[in-house]
């Protein structure tokens, strides 16, 4: 009957071998997992860009001119702080009058990326909110008093006055998508629903258009479209 009997030296050798084997295993495992983590590190940085919607719109409609700069900064895996800054001059033609709005605006808030990227892709489907503020002038270019059609043969338009130092503030909810089209270059398309909080109204007229808010509807709501091109200045990388 053969029994497994090891001499003490053999036992020690086996033991050392097993330990070494375990250490090797651990080392390999560590290397593999850290390599996996390396491949899903996301970029954090400052992203700046411009709005393309108004420049494109100006091409079709000379009544709207302006420039908007956009930016956002990633603060966590899902959250970004975002801001937009712009100026706009817009001519509105209504049935009985025409007016020009001219001014600048700023919007600040945050976006939440509801989309889970694979690997190290950086696309977004985001929801966000903004607080907006604008200072502007309104100029009543021309108007005709709305009277009985009986007097139409005499009707001529008269020019109106300029209302200065007006302002308005509002909140927005934003919904959009953002895709990295080239390395660190992003295209974004978003829609915003806006609600006026307060505004300084002109005398015997009304803020029917506000830069950054666009057309003001009867219940002080509005909407906007944004199409932006931006570039990410990477500052550091962080694992998800």
């Amino acid at each position: 009957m053969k029994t497994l009997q090891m001499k003490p030296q053999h036992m020690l050798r086996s033991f050392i071998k097993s330990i070494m084997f375990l250490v090797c295993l651990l080392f390999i495992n560590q290397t593999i997992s850290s390599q996996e983590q390396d491949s899903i590190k996301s970029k954090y940085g400052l992203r700046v860009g411009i709005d393309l919607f108004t420049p494109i719109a100006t091409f079709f409609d000379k009544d709207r001119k302006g420039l908007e700069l956009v930016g956002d900064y990633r603060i966590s895996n899902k959250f970004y702080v975002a801001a937009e800054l712009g100026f706009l001059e817009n001519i509105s033609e209504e049935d009985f009058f025409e007016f020009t709005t001219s001014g600048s605006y700023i919007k600040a808030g945050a976006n939440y990326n509801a989309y889970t990227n694979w690997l190290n892709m950086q696309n977004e489907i985001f929801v966000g909110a903004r607080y907006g503020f604008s200072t502007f002038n309104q100029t009543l270019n021309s108007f005709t008093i709305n009277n009985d059609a009986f007097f139409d043969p005499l009707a001529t338009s008269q020019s109106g006055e300029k209302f200065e130092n007006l302002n308005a503030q509002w909140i927005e909810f934003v919904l959009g998508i953002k895709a990295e089209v080239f390395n660190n270059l992003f295209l974004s398309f978003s829609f915003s629903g806006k609600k006026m909080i307060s505004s300084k109204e002109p005398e015997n007229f009304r803020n029917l258009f506000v830069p950054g808010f666009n057309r003001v509807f009867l219940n002080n709501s509005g909407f906007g479209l944004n199409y932006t091109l931006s570039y990410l200045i990477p500052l550091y990388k962080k694992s998800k």
Partner: protein
Amino acid sequence: MLIFSSCERDDICIDDITPHVILRFYDAELPTDLKVVNQLSVKVLGIDNDSLFFTGLDSIAIPVNVLANNTAYTLTVDSNNGTILNRDVLTLSYTLESIFVGRSCGYKGNFLNSTYQISDDGDNWIESVEIINENITNETAAHVKIFH
């Protein structure tokens, strides 16, 4: 999306715009009684439009000119009867005030501190005029009494 679903359309003008002046006709002999005017034809001096024609009414609403400080009307009574027509010229003078109403209505005109004058042509069918409201800002009530 509460905000979007409540974007109201403000494309249609439903608010009050520039009011007409409302004339009410009374009996010159019994000043508290209303007196209907037969076949009244109203023409505005300076406008080549067809006359406004009213028949069997004791109240009429006629438009006022917002591009001047006065509007002169030729009021012709019994305008369908024969060749002898009695025309009186009534001149309404006022101070114009323009008030912003909204996006689709634009501005309306109010006629303030209005005064009336009947041109004496020796054979007036209108005897006298009494102002009810010198500010013509809406069409809820008559603005002037015409006694004939």
